[in-house]
């Protein structure tokens, strides 16, 4: 690989850690404004290098190997990019940039600690997707998880004690169960190390027996499924996103949730195809519960933040449906959906936090008529809602289209039921827009409505970044699908389906 790719990839992942160490070392010397500036600089650097790394990867075209490794930097873990991890890395970098810029506009106590935790989480997220070593993926995931817990305990809103504990226990349980699955794969295949290449080579030379595949895939599916809030292990998600400080919620819902799906696509299914085939119908049924049951629950929500959280749980169901088809089209659609959903849920969480802060209300029924006071905010909110619904021109559209198309050949009944997910998201999305922005402001709100300011500078920048990338991916989905196709076609597991 040429050196520019190595440099950009390593910078994208390790820059946030380096800047976090800088803030920690200069703790006494700098003030919160300086710390915020350093964090913004770090996110910018990481974003630009991630962009360059992904562009460099994309230019490889059909020459790209399955995993494009980067040179190892001293003793730090080796990184690599593949068709699945490149969009995830870019997603992580984008949402990190947006989250950091949004944090600049907030008034935070203990701002230095906040930014250190934010940067550590960003580094962990970027590293989790690009690590070449499966064990390091798990460790980076923990690097991203522990700051969320600490942040929730310190800056969370009401109900944070229970939510933080629940999140920590569920996610660690999921991570540990999947770790046992990883160890099982390592032990059963007799692979030389925990590297992706070593494990793929070992699987090719000595495929895992069907008996083992059944049980190991079950462990990986349920463990990683807990991380992605698959039914019935989703109860940690809504409260976590409602109580966590917004930047961390954006990073968690937008990026960290996708880690489970990423591991399934890149690691679990290629290594254990027979196991996935055994479990695919169960996975599809559980995913349908996510879509339909959680869809109903989302429609019943009055708290705008809870509504957004539940909707993200529902959309993960759609991604799992794509995974269950085990076809290039379905999984490719899931990848685009992960990308698009990550951006749109981050956008919606940020905007709903802005709305809640401005109106001092969490209840959508008590809002209304904000359109006149905050037209720009309304514009962004409608854009986010349209993206969630799956309007063409946003990335989610391509994802849902591909998933539903591949579901049709997998099982027409499941496809029809899955398509109702579109209806649910349209209903609750548009209802939220109507309740918050249209109509007449309700009693309490109408007293304070003249003091509500429109969306401010930093918030605008953050929202625009997210919307811009959404539209970019929506208009040029080839940027994501071409590398993803190359990768997926190279795995024999994915050519079983259509």
């Amino acid at each position, binding site marked *: 690989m040429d050196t520019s790719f190595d440099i950009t990839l390593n910078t994208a992942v390790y820059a946030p850690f380096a800047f976090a160490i800088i803030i920690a070392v200069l703790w006494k010397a700098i003030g919160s404004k300086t710390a915020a500036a350093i964090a913004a600089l770090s996110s910018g650097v990481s974003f630009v290098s991630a962009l360059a790394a992904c562009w460099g990867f994309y230019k490889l075209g059909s020459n790209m190997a399955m995993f494009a490794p980067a040179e190892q930097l001293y003793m730090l873990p080796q990184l690599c990019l593949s068709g699945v991890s490149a969009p995830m890395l870019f997603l992580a970098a984008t949402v990190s940039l947006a989250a950091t810029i949004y944090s600049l506009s907030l008034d935070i106590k203990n701002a230095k600690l906040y930014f250190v935790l934010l940067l550590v989480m960003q580094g962990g997220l970027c590293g989790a997707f690009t690590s070449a070593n499966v064990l390091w993926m798990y460790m980076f995931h923990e690097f991203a998880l522990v700051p969320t817990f*600490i942040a929730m*305990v310190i800056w969370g809103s009401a109900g944070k004690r229970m939510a*933080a504990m629940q999140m920590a226990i569920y996610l660690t349980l999921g991570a540990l169960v999947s770790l046992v699955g990883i160890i099982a794969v390592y*032990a059963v295949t007799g692979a030389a190390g925990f590297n992706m290449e070593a494990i793929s080579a070992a699987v090719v030379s000595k495929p895992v027996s069907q008996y083992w595949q059944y049980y190991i895939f079950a462990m990986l599916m349920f463990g990683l499924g807990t991380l992605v809030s698959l039914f019935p292990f989703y109860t940690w998600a809504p409260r976590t996103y409602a109580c966590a400080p917004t930047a961390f919620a954006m990073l968690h819902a937008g990026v960290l949730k996708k880690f489970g799906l990423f591991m399934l696509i890149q690691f679990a299914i290629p290594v254990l195809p027979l196991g996935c085939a055994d479990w695919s119908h169960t996975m599809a049924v559980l995913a349908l519960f996510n879509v339909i049951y959680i869809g109903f629950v989302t429609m019943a929500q009055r708290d705008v933040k809870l509504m957004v959280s539940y909707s993200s749980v529902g959309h993960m169901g759609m991604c799992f449906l794509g995974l269950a088809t085990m076809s290039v089209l379905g999984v490719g659609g899931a990848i685009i959906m992960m990308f698009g959903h990550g951006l749109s849920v981050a956008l919606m969480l940020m905007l709903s936090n802005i709305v809640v802060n401005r109106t001092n209300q969490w209840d959508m029924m008590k809002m209304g008529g904000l359109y006149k006071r905050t037209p720009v905010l309304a514009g962004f909110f409608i854009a986010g809602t349209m993206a969630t619904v799956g309007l063409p021109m946003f990335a989610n559209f391509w994802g849902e289209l591909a998933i539903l198309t591949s579901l049709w050949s997998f099982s027409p009944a499941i496809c029809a039921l899955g398509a109702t997910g579109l209806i649910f998201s349209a209903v609750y999305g548009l209802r939220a827009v109507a309740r918050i922005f249209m109509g007449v402001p309700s009693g309490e709100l109408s007293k304070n409505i003249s003091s509500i300011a429109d969306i401010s500078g930093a918030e605008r920048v953050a929202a625009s970044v997210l919307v811009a990338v959404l539209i970019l991916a929506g208009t040029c989905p080839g940027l994501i699908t071409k590398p993803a196709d190359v990768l997926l076609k190279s795995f024999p597991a994915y050519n079983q389906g259509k």
Partner: protein
Amino acid sequence: METLYSFDWASVKMEAALVIFAVLALLSAVALPRRFQTSVSALAFVGMYLALILACVFADRLMYCAYGCLIVICALLTSQMSFSFFDKLGRSGQSRNEYIAVVMMSAAGLILFGNTDNMMVAFVALECATICLYIMAAFSKDCASSLEAGVKYLIVGGFSGALMLMGIAFMYGAGRIEGVDFMYMGNFSAGLLNGFFKTGLVLVFAGVFFKIAAFPFQFWAPDVYQGAPTPSSAFFAVASKIAGVVFLAKICAYLNFNSADLLSVKEDVVLTLSVIAGATIIVGNLGGITQMRTKRLLAFSGISNAGYLLVLIAALLAEPSSAYAFNTVLIFYLGAYMMANYALFIAVGQFPEANQTAQTLSDYRGSFKKHPVVSLALSVNLASLAGIPPTSGFFAKLMVLVLAWYAQLYWLLGIMVAGSVVSIYYYFSWIRSMAEPEDKTPCQFAPTAAAKQTIVLLAICVLAISAAVLVFAGAQ
């Protein structure tokens, strides 16, 4: 015939150094007036450092050296903790020096207990160490809870020693009948067919299970850890557990089930050990969930760690071919456990009053604000106990999981994973209490400079050792 001169003194260099300096320190403490007491403490510390140096420089068998060093480090840390403890009690330097001498003698006994191949020597060494531990538990003579803890430990320790002795008696008898010397551990595999021997072995194991606080003999641990002075609790929690586990591991390494008719015996033994390990993990973790008092919490954490170590021993029994990896993993796990636990016990002791029997988690509120560095270090140590990467506790648990998988102990693996997840609840409760703002009373947590340095140093070691493991594993 062996004489005083032909005896292999080099093999007991650590114990000899510790005992000689302990006796010297004890005599000097009693004889010398007050102003010399600090020098007497220095003498005791010289003895402990000498034992460490002797072990490392003249290392013959790696396992013996590593185990001995672990116990001496425990003794060093306990002695350091005793300085602030006795200052708060307002007792003279002489009391403190007597305490340090007792700690050193106990450490010598434990090292001999873990290193010996002869059952009788093991029993004598264990009793010697345990008697010193009784003294350590009851050292706060004026404090009712300390005396109560001492009495409880006395009864439990006496009971377990008697059980173990009965076991050894039966093993001796079996040896006399068979014509083999069963006092020497190397002959154990020959005895597995003899009824007396098996009964004896079961009783010995029961005695050691009392020592490491495994199910069903774990009920004494929370009370004794809570009542005893904090330096003693730390020594119980770490050193006696290390000694008990290494002794069990030694016996299990010598048990060879290779002949065909012993396979069913092996299945039974592995099953029993797995059940005990699983029950210990469950009891330890469930007990810790509702616990608000810090010392009892640490006791339950110790019980669940005893369970994880028993998983490791069951894996050794089930899959004897992993013996080389087993020793490394055992020492690594015990080292990680020692560092994290000592940091926490040091922190428990850093409050204004000497007696921490009633200390609860809410006493730590506001620590992050007042002492951010120490609180961060404590969080790292709590994360190591919980098994969060990238601390060494995580790697230790990971290695135990891998060994358990190779030994095909799947149910036990599941229980261990579930136990680790549950344990996150009470470890993270501690971190959460530290992060919460102060209630009505200001935070009393006031670590001395020495304590701060030690806690931070232990946290750095926890991370540095895991970094070394990663580098070592990555370089392969």
